[in-house]
């Protein structure tokens, strides 16, 4: 049964008519052509589809559209600020913290939500928080370094 659903997406208010039981991933990718959010496992085991709903990370392949009513979604497409790359994006580039790049949007959004709550994460904090995000190319150590660099930049440390 289709319903009209209103929410905020990357800062803009949006309303669309769809079946509220559909998973957010497909609405983003297919209805809204926001293809930065990736399907990789489809069952919540890999983190590639991570987006933020009210700053909390959710696995959009398991998250029904119903759940976003009146809320604010952030996808990788919304992370740039006035055309400027977010420090996490810059740090991922600087550390070459990616190879094929398919898991990268999920990694960056997972890290972003962590840094909102924990601006100075230890390596263990990062590993524990990011454990559900899989990278088949094996860039984990570089991702940890990138997150630490971005955290420093966001805190305003020059060190």
């Amino acid at each position, binding site marked *: 049964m289709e319903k009209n659903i209103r929410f905020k997406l990357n800062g803009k208010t949006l309303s669309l008519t769809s079946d509220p039981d559909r998973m957010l991933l497909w609405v983003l990718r*297919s209805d809204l052509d926001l293809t930065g959010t*990736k399907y990789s496992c489809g069952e919540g085991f890999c983190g590639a589809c991570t987006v933020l709903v009210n700053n909390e990370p959710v696995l959009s392949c398991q998250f029904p559209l119903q759940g976003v009513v009146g809320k604010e979604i952030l*996808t990788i497409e919304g992370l740039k600020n006035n055309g400027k790359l977010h420090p996490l994006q810059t740090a991922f580039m600087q550390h070459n913290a*990616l190879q094929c790049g398919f898991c990268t949007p999920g990694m960056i959004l997972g890290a972003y939500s962590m840094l909102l709550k924990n601006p100075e994460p230890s390596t263990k904090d990062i590993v*524990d928080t990011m454990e559900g995000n899989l990278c088949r*190319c094996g860039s984990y150590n570089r991702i940890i370094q990138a997150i630490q660099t971005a955290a420093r930049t966001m805190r305003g440390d020059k060190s």
Partner: protein
Amino acid sequence: MRDDTYSFTLDRREFLKLVGGGIVIFFSTGDPLALQQRRGRRYPEDFNAYLLIGEDGRVSCFTGKIEMGQGIHTSLAQMLAEELDVPLNSVDMVMGDTELCPYDSGTFGSRSTKYFGPPLRQAAAEARAVLIQLASEQLGTPQKNLTAKEGNIFVTDNPQKKVSYAQLAKGKKIERHLEKKPPIKHYSKHTVSGNPTDRVDSKPKVTGEAKFAVDIRLPDMLHAKILRPPAHGATLKSADTSAAKKIPNIQVIQDKDMIAVLHKHPDVAEKALGLIKAQFEPSGSTLDNKTIFKHLKDSAPNGNVVTEEGNIEDGKRLSAKTFEKAYYNHYVAHAPSEPHTAVVNIEGDKATVWASTQSPFRAQGEVAQVLGFPLEKVRVITPFVGCGFGGKNQGNQITEAARLAKLSGKPVQVAWTRKEEFFYDTFRPAAVIDIKSGINSANQIVFWEYHNYFAGDRSSQPFYNIPHYKVQSMGGWGGRSEGGSVHPFGVGAWRGPGSNTNVFAIESHIDIMAEEAGMNPLEFRLHNLTDERMKRILLAAAEKFGKTFAKAPSGKGYGLACTDYLGTYLATMAEVNVNQNSGEVRVGRVVCAQDTGEVINPEGVRMQIEGCITMGLGYCFTEEIRFSNGRILDENFDTYEIPRFSWTPKIETVLVDNPEMPPQGCGEPAITSMGAVIANAVYDVIGKRMFTLPMTPARIKEALS
């Protein structure tokens, strides 16, 4: 496929028309494999790459190679920029587009830098010579008085007097066919090549703008979901699609063996697929993980000799101690981040394909055949590919999308689910290795008899100094002619094909002999090596590792392994802990020293080594496809566990300087030693030898009990 369906898709005149003016150099990649595969395809020219200096001064390299994360987008651009004296950011790599790029057999085997790099350099040198000649005419200065730098040519004594490549290429239509090999720069003069360089493709990947095949969107495009059998060998008896057809705007297509549902949203198509009630005849396969090894040995063809020297019987007579062991590995999935995907759009008599593939030209041929189109009417474009590891050399999703595009009259995307990915993967084959060997009273290996069942023979050639050896292969890793038909499902190349299994067996066996010889594993290897390059790499790794090996089991948890992967030498050392109650292994640290010849992008090589080590932990500890009666029991990452953040050890890489040797491959070598280095380290802790990969906690507990 008929050979005469192959013809060059774009001739030189058309190509020049397409790119406009400028200077074009045609050259050949020089890969013996590519040349061999091209034979009989009526190739009008023996070049298979182009280099273009455009009228805007930008330099483009057109190659059928593809980027799947391995970083050749960056390293090839570095080689080109270096030889042509242009800034790296003025190079565009145009890759994997069958309309713009000449034929290429595919991107696999760590062959791109090794085989494509050197002729690319020569083409760039040729282009530079053409530019110098033009500059000489334009500036009225002899060529010997000119210097090229950063896209400009200037009079050496008067740098103000200069002309840019853009100015030189403007209004020109110059084509050169690289015939002789122009001299290239000595590595000591390099300023771009050899420098640690950041990936050139990372920006679109961190912003979400990078397009993979699954991200292609076309007007009216439909997403197709296809009815799949529950098991390999199961055949469709009947299907009731009536419930699926009731979903609004759904299209159901039945064509021969294929039933597909199509909708503008993939999730709606998936839902409709779930409503099809289908009956299948069960698979005739009775194999499972327990019976597979016996089956493989029973089904093995007569062996062919990979390499031999001396006489095994003579070697046995020289032996003071003999050894006989068998090594096993299970099926392993590629599990790429991005499942196999293709989009096909047919407009009139032309089809355009966007595919996640390592072999765009193979895909072109397959689509042409399935559509009945001439080859030149099929264009395959390879967007970014989300991992390959050999698994994307093939994939039926491309022809499925082509058939459905034709039948539906709309652009169609077929994107495999994770479950389909696990079902249709061409797994790394299960394999058995039997080794018999002997050492004499001076602890020298005197014979080595190696029987390889279905691993593939890569890296099975002994590099130790052994007077009597014989290596036999009883079935390879690949297609049906190589023994693929004995497996209950598809098998194929998996990152470092053959080598992962061979190095596990060889280097485990070396450790067994070392212990019996009363020597530590490093000492025993050095004692039995005359290959100075291998000794050097072992010592380089040992220096970085900084620990002293003792006769195993020392209780310390140190392991080592070394190998020669198609010319790249490497030695890996690891430190592990084993939880003897749970059987779980924790890898604390891995050191890998690699000699890959001249290094083009040290940063890129390090990334590949780190990725190899991390990915390799999967087949060490968990990665094993479980199957029964044709069913694949692992369908997702809940039961098929791949390495994650918490597994990752501290990784240290040593790039051993060897610039005199041409660049070798580096996308695969470091993964191939992982089974052995970890098995040896585990033995060093628990004193029990693990003969089967993966070394799951259950298998380790069993060994301990």
